[in-house]
């Protein structure tokens, strides 16, 4: 059976039908079924709710939907009852019954089970995550009903590719993958190139331990990503996109696969998109556990089926990328911003955040914090507000020792620097990086050297082994740190560490090696006292080290 070929106007129709369909229900129970809540029994909960509304005979006025991440992962499983946005935390089947009877049948929200969400949501600015926790990722209609794919329609009907790029330029959008390269500039490089084919790669390979923003995004709102890819493809003239994702994300893979399939059915992807002349294909490519594959040139190697080893730039992927063709590599979060910018205009977007860093940024807030989860804040917000207001501080009233921002190759910032604002430039001046957006909070029970060693350890195991500084240098740093931790350190080790770290960051081939020594450099800068205490006094504030002491060094 051939499905009817959809055209531009159909998007509007689908939206209207879906809105009407949803309006018929008084309540909507959104059960968060993201990777954070599923281990806590969210799928079971979904079934319980479906059963309950039938039992209570409210199926006609209440809709139960599975959604992506609400963001309050520590309180999982999370259920949101619309309208009104009542977030229920730690929901069990018993509590579910109470919710259905009290809230849905009687119309009285169960106050004792509600999540204290005021500050958590107030300080946030959810743009990219606008649909997270609100729509069903498996249903394209749900996305279209919230205005999805209308930006694509707008582009295809009213904007030339150049106008799309101009709009992005006005918005000031910068790549969210870490380095913060202006997106419009990247696009215009490729758009100017007249060779074809051109490619787009969406980078969903966030290998940073403790970072899950991109995964959550893809799990909650896959079509925003696809729409972003389509607009990008239209703007630069590419007809093929790859979504490069981690194989460790089975749920995201499943959702994306189904989303791509559904879009193809509706003629949103494929030949003659929505009846226009645009041809566009999206293919899912699985990574296989290599952190370095997040690097531009390594991701290309990996998509080509080779070892993900970076190569020196120039030539940049924009001129010689996938199979030597012009290629744009874009982070998933960046792409999810695109439909919004087209819909609301670049000027609107440029007013959010700081003048140099516009827009918002997603952060995974983890570690020793009361309220871990996924958040989205405007650029320029002070780190302190993120940790103490949105994250509600450190458990057991302990003292914050450091906040690690930017993943394993980020920087460890001490308490005094928490007032620095979150944007690319400010973070760079204090020695951290934006990275892919991970904030890990460390309290005074952790030894700062042990923490630095953990990150170096990670980079050692993820280094591709191509260039000497990264392959051997990081290993040596790790060995020196191990020696200090065991109590066998030498006084000159501190100097050797900083010398070696600077050497590695200046001479390494790719971003992994260049940023890998950051934890050591920043801890040396802000926590030198602890290093010296370890070396001179064999004293560790966290009381973790010196389990394997050797003969003391002499002379």
């Amino acid at each position, binding site marked *: 059976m051939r499905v009817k070929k959809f055209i531009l106007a159909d998007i509007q129709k689908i939206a209207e039908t879906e809105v009407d369909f949803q309006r018929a229900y008084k309540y909507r129970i959104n059960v968060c079924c993201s990777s*954070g809540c599923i281990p*806590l029994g969210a799928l079971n909960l979904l079934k319980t709710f479906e059963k309950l509304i039938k039992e209570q005979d409210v199926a006609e006025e209440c809709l139960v939907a599975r959604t992506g991440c609400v963001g309050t992962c*520590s309180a999982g499983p999370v259920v949101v009852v619309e309208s009104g946005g009542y977030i229920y935390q730690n929901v069990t089947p018993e509590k579910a019954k109470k919710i259905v009877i009290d809230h849905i049948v009687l119309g009285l929200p169960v106050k004792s089970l509600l999540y204290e969400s005021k500050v958590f949501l107030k300080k946030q600015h959810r743009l990219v995550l606008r649909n997270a926790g609100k729509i069903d990722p498996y249903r394209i209609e749900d996305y279209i009903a919230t205005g999805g794919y209308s930006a694509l329609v707008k582009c295809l009907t009213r904007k030339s590719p150049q106008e799309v790029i101009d709009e992005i330029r006005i918005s000031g959008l910068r790549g969210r993958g870490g380095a913060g390269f202006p997106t419009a500039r990247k696009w215009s490089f490729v758009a100017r190139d007249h060779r074809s084919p051109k490619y787009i790669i969406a980078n969903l390979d966030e290998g940073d331990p*403790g970072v899950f923003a991109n995964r*959550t995004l893809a799990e909650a709102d896959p079509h925003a990503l696809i729409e972003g890819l389509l607009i990008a493809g239209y703007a630069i003239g590419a007809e093929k996109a790859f979504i490069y994702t981690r194989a*460790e994300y089975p749920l995201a893979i499943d959702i994306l696969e189904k989303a791509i399939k559904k879009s193809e059915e509706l003629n949103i992807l494929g030949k003659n998109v929505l009846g226009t002349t645009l041809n566009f294909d999206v293919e899912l490519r699985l990574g296989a556990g290599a952190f370095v594959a997040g690097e531009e040139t390594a991701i290309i190697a990996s998509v080509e089926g*080779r070892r993900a080893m970076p190569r020196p730039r120039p030539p940049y992927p924009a001129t010689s990328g996938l199979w030597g063709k012009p290629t744009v590599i874009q982070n998933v979060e960046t792409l999810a911003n695109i439909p919004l910018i087209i819909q609301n205009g670049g000027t609107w977007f440029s007013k959010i955040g700081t003048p140099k860093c516009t827009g918002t940024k997603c952060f995974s807030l983890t570690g020793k914090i009361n309220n871990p989860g*996924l958040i989205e804040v405007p650029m320029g917000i002070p780190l302190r507000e993120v940790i103490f207001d949105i994250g509600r501080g450190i458990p057991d009233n302990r003292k914050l020792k450091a906040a690690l921002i930017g993943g394993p190759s980020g920087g460890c910032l001490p308490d005094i620097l928490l007032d620095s604002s979150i944007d690319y430039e400010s973070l760079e001046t204090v020695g951290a990086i934006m990275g892919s957006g991970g904030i890990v909070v460390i309290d005074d029970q952790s030894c700062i050297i042990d923490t630095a060693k953990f990150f170096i350890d990670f980079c050692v195991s993820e280094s591709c082994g191509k260039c000497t500084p990264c392959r051997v240098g990081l290993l040596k740093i790790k060995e020196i740190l191990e020696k200090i931790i065991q109590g066998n350190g030498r006084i000159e080790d501190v100097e050797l560490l900083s010398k070696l770290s600077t050497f590695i960051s200046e001479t390494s081939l790719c971003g992994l090696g260049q940023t890998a020594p950051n934890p050591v450099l920043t801890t040396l800068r802000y926590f030198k006292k602890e290093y010296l205490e370890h070396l001179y006094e064999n004293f560790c504030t966290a009381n973790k080290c010196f389990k394997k002491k050797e003969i003391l060094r002499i002379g």
Partner: protein
Amino acid sequence: MIKLTFKKKSESFLSSQSMVYAPLKKPKVLISMGLKNDKRLLKLERFLKKMEYKGSALLEILHKTQEIYGYLNEDVLKYVSEAIELPLSHVYGVATFYSYFKLKQSGEHVITACMGTACYVKGVEKIISAIEKRFCVKRGGSTADGKLSLFITRCIGACAIGPTILIDDNVVGNATKDIVLERIASTLESEKIYTCRYSKNS
């Protein structure tokens, strides 16, 4: 002190000469590998056809192989390399580069401990050492009887409920040493996959 490996040329090595010099006809390889009645191989062959025997799809093919066989079997990889006309060393290099691919068969039950930052900060290390001690298994290896394997992964993305341990496919969130050890023990004893849903309040 340095180990010297010295081995005479083996005669029985999978008719090695024919692998290189025989014209690259795909069905012939099937026979030469002695695996022609293997249904799993036929499944893989179908996937290869779908991928049009393209070398650039190597990662996809390796994923599929691992999905079908549970690990990357050496003979199968040789077959793959022949089929998509890539050098053996290249296939081996790619398979060993990515940590997701396993070249050894893992135990009946697989414990995967998340070593992401969040889990590390929350003390997953202690749990891992406890597992190692209790079940006599080293990280990255299997027990002697092949019942249990212990692997470390970078991050399964469930950071907010860390530390997390995967027992087969079941995630144990907010794990503690006692809970994990008990779960593994019962998994091994009952030989049934223990459904472990963890709820804080129940």
